[in-house]
């Protein structure tokens, strides 16, 4: 025991009733998780399913959820990203097959009308699929949610250098995937 360090303040929380705790978790974190999930997935339905899967995992492992709002949020965000990563790996295999066998058309700009703009937006959003979910989450948090790098590192439990590296690689991959749009 000698190597134990002094710890933080003793958190006092009622973690006795898992159902009540799950309800509190849902009410406190649902909106934040949905926003992230929507930006990691192709459709609102996929995002809803992803958030639901995350809370079901919380329901299965109530004892592994840390105490405190920020810790809970970090745990849920990491679970959500891990679930998305499993889905992404399955989809990646399928999309490689489609690209090879079915000859799917590459991304590119369309005409300037309204329909074209909608398609362009969808194409840009589809380009994010080239990023792994963790990298995509980092890009989304930084570029769309405006979260500072230290806060992202803390949320995902990784170093700031790793966050910067993912951001740099993510921007590079997106620049390549969206070349047609950035050179418009």
């Amino acid at each position, binding site marked *: 025991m000698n190597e*134990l*360090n002094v*710890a933080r303040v*003793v958190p006092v929380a009622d973690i006795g009733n898992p159902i009540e705790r799950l309800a509190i978790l849902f009410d406190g974190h649902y909106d934040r998780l949905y926003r992230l999930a929507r930006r990691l997935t192709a459709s609102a339905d996929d995002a809803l399913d992803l958030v639901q899967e995350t809370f*079901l995992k919380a329901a299965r492992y109530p004892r*592994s959820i840390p105490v405190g709002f920020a810790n809970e949020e970090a745990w849920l965000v990491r679970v959500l990203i891990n679930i998305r990563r499993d889905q992404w790996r399955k989809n990646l295999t399928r999309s490689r097959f489609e690209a090879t066998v079915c000859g799917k058309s590459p991304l590119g700009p369309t005409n300037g009308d309204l329909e074209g703009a909608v398609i362009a*937006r969808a194409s*840009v959003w589809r380009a994010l699929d080239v990023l792994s979910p963790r990298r995509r989450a980092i890009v989304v948090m930084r570029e769309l949610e405006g979260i500072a790098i230290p806060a992202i590192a803390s949320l995902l439990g990784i170093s700031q250098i790793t966050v910067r590296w993912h951001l740099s690689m993510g921007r590079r991959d997106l620049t390549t995937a969206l070349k047609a749009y*950035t050179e418009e």
Partner: protein
Amino acid sequence: MKSITELLRDADPLLHESMTSSEQRDYRRKAILAVASRARDRAGAEPRSRVTLLVTLGFVMIVVLFFAERMWSPLVSNVYAAAVRFEVKLAEEKPAAGLHEAKVSGTDRSVYLHADAIVTNSDISQAYIIQADHSSQYNVGVEFNPSGTGKIRAATARHIGKPVAILLDGQVVMTAIVREPIAESAVISGDLSRTEAEKIVKGITTIR
């Protein structure tokens, strides 16, 4: 020419879609809580044959330990050696009569402990591992039984703004300032590996 950031912001689906409706949200909430509730009920309803088996196994263990103690006391003393003595004591930051100084593990700090423990192993209903912020670090959660809850609530209510100390095997492993009365549960947090956390959990629940 647009930057990556501008392209992403233009394409952000949340710009063009509304958040989920309250009906959708309530529907998902109910579904999740219903699944959790069913899972809990299933876990609570142990098959009778399994319970009987566990009771039998428990009885056999007691008999084996009883004879082992008489026949081979060193073995039994090792079993007890694995136990971890858990105590929570009120503490002060300055020395005074009746208090004794104790080093806080892993630091140069000292606290001054009151003689009596507020709660001990017998006041714990269960202990379990909680994964901390980083996946390689673990905390130990402790839930007190009604007697322990009453004792720690009463003691810490009169000790707001002052420290309490958690001791494992007589060593102060952590201190914390009481911000509000501690009630049903507490968390022992620190740089614990999973093995250390498991050892503490098993050790805490070994002594009753």
